[in-house]
């Protein structure tokens, strides 16, 4: 980890139609190589924040700069940021009409403009990394949930992103499959990938996170390095939340 910031999100405000405030002047700076884990009750704006970071949601106010590129109304910048930011969804969102191999090849060929041979090489290396080379020519529906999520991680990694966002990546999985996905995420963190992880897996947060951010109602209630956060939480709200889920 360095001190150089890679994600700068300042004063983000997002109000959904109907007046629900998802983000309320939310500010978070993430340093290169850092693993930030965001926790909080449902509806606290965790997912909305992640989705704003790569422009899937538009903020009503505030500024986002990723790796020096401002996320603004220029389509070019938006696409550039998306190329540098990988995202893993709760519901995998694999492309069901493509094989595992084709899922991972797609963006390499059409966004990174790699040759098919180059893409194939990267794809096989990534499949080896997430441990499912034998499923390369299967379709997503032929895979278990855990396998699908590992393919989704490989698909995001194929863009060689500088940042990875995980939006409750294990929430839709059967308990026995959560471990295999967390294992892949843990390995990524060890390699020095910058990660912003929204999760309910406190064991993972404690073990892999460098810093924990506790959110509620679109604001940060408390943020601290992992040890301090779990060891000596400062806010009453944090203590109450932790006592409920630990």
């Amino acid at each position: 980890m360095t001190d150089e910031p890679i994600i700068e999100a300042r004063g983000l405000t997002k109000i959904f139609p109907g007046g629900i405030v998802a983000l309320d002047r939310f500010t978070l700076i993430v340093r290169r190589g850092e693993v930030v884990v965001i926790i909080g009750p449902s509806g606290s704006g965790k997912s909305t924040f992640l989705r704003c970071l790569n422009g899937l949601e538009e903020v009503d106010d505030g500024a986002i700069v990723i790796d020096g590129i401002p996320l603004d109304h220029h389509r070019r910048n938006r696409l550039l940021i998306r190329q540098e930011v990988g995202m893993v969804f709760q519901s995998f969102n694999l492309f069901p009409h493509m094989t595992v191999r084709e899922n991972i090849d797609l963006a390499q060929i059409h966004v990174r403009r790699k040759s098919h041979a180059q893409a194939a090489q990267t794809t096989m290396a990534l499949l080896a990394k997430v441990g499912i080379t034998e499923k390369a020519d299967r379709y997503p529906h032929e895979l278990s949930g855990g396998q699908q999520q590992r393919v989704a991680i490989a698909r995001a990694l194929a863009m060689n992103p500088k940042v990875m966002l995980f939006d409750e990546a294990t929430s839709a999985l059967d308990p026995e499959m959560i471990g295999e996905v967390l294992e892949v995420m843990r390995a990524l963190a060890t390699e020095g990938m910058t990660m912003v992880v929204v999760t309910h897996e406190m064991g993972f947060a404690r073990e892999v996170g460098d810093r924990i951010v506790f959110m509620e109602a679109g604001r940060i209630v408390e943020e601290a390095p992992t040890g301090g956060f779990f060891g000596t939480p400062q806010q009453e709200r944090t203590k109450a939340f932790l006592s409920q889920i630990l």
Partner: protein
Amino acid sequence: MTADMNGPFHQRAARMSTLIDCGKFLLLAGLAVWLLALGTRGLGYQWQWYRVPRFLLVAQGGNWTAGPLLQGLWVTLQISALSLACTLALGLAAALLRLSASFTARALARGYLELIRNTPLLIQIFFVYFVLSPVLDIGAFASAVLALSLFEGAYAAEILRAGIVSIHRGQWEAAHSLGLGVLDTYRHVILPQALRRVLPPLAGQGISLIKDSSLVSTIAIYDLTMQGQRIVAETFLAFEIWFTVAAIYLVMTFGLSFAVRALEHRMNGAPHVRIGGIA
């Protein structure tokens, strides 16, 4: 399949139900034939089917050549095939315009759809042939293809749009998060899935197109219907010729349905459980 499903009892039950099914089918077919016979007897019509074959095939010096009906069929096939291709292109363009972020594009598509779908095809054909074709400097054949494509394209556009919006938005988000632009997302992610879903209604539109193409006979194109009309005028073989013409249309449209069904099967879209079957 379990061992039980292959047992003698299961086999006998399956044979029995097939037998009953065949019985029902024969009963229905017999009923239909009986009704038809009843109807034609009441008509008091002098059937002369033996005079029909010469309009299909003509023997000339020992060589068989296409009679007027088959010549008409060839024209209908050409018009239908060309129009089908243009219909898909136009329908896709209109569907994408309707889903565009631009107000002008949406208004344009909306205007096209409403205008075309709310006026009769016959009048559209007249309009294209008499008003547009001198301006565009095109003949009757091109006018026919243009009018048919414009008409069927409006319906195809709505079918395609329905397919596109039925794709879960997670697919868009996944594609966007990988840095794919809107056009690449449509091309590689959304359209392949959407087309698969709307193949059955799209095939229905194709069948309509083939049948609707009979209206081009009104602008002096010698298609299947026009040839039939001419023969009837000369020979007064009204029912024989019109039924033959209808049968030829049936073969064409059935061919199309069959091709689409085969395509659908290859894409894994066919249902695996039938109503009334074993769930």
